[in-house]
């Protein structure tokens, strides 16, 4: 399954990556699975599971905390990971 990933703010800098296209195995079915899969790359990518309060969005809708395990991925989905927002 192909996904479009986006990273923002401090996370983007830590990963040195603003976005990427990935093809994930069938075992990656939810946003929570994706987070684990990315973290398993090791090194700076472990931030996805170790950094406190990292938020996510699926198809440009922010996920409420703890909703990632119920948020099912689909072909072509856009998933973003980012620190808590600080606008306004």
């Amino acid at each position: 399954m192909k996904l479009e990933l986006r990273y923002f703010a401090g996370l983007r800098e830590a990963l040195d990556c603003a976005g990427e296209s990935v093809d994930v195995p069938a075992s990656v079915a939810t946003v929570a699975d994706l987070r684990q899969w990315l973290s398993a790359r090791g090194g700076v990518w472990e931030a996805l599971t170790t950094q406190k309060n990292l938020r996510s969005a699926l198809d440009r809708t922010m996920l409420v905390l703890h909703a990632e395990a119920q948020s099912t991925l689909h072909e072509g989905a856009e998933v973003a990971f980012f620190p808590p927002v600080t606008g306004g």
Partner: protein
Amino acid sequence: MSVSVQSEDFDVGAETVALSTGRNEVGAVATFVGLVRADKCSQVGAGTTAIAAMTLEHYPGMTEKALTEIVTEAENRWPLQGVRVIHRIGRLQPGERIVFVGVASAHRGAAFAACEFIMDYLKTRAPFWKKEETPIGGQWVDARESDDQAAARWARDS
């Protein structure tokens, strides 16, 4: 409803007037303007210089969608005749305007409440991030728990 994400400044007077122009049913316009504060750099020790500037990053495509959803929620909760939201991006210096929220309604209660609601939700749900320029380099601004608490005040049981 009108939502803009832009690097340019905005005219507070013109935006405020536009909210009631041609709408004689409007009896109240409440506005909020957010500015860049010349905060001390807390992370580099006490008594240091104020931040020189900040840069606002956002999530193109999601930002406009998130702001529109927030305004729609406000329109569902209060009888509003007009809403204008402008949020700037890019590099801004202390004293510069960041955000404008203007709400028009028949009465002040709805206008005040909806204006505050939109700002509280914008702070916690719109994908913007601030990075401050300090003497030791760029520092991402931490989210505040008080902002989450402010947004939670508006939560509904249903």
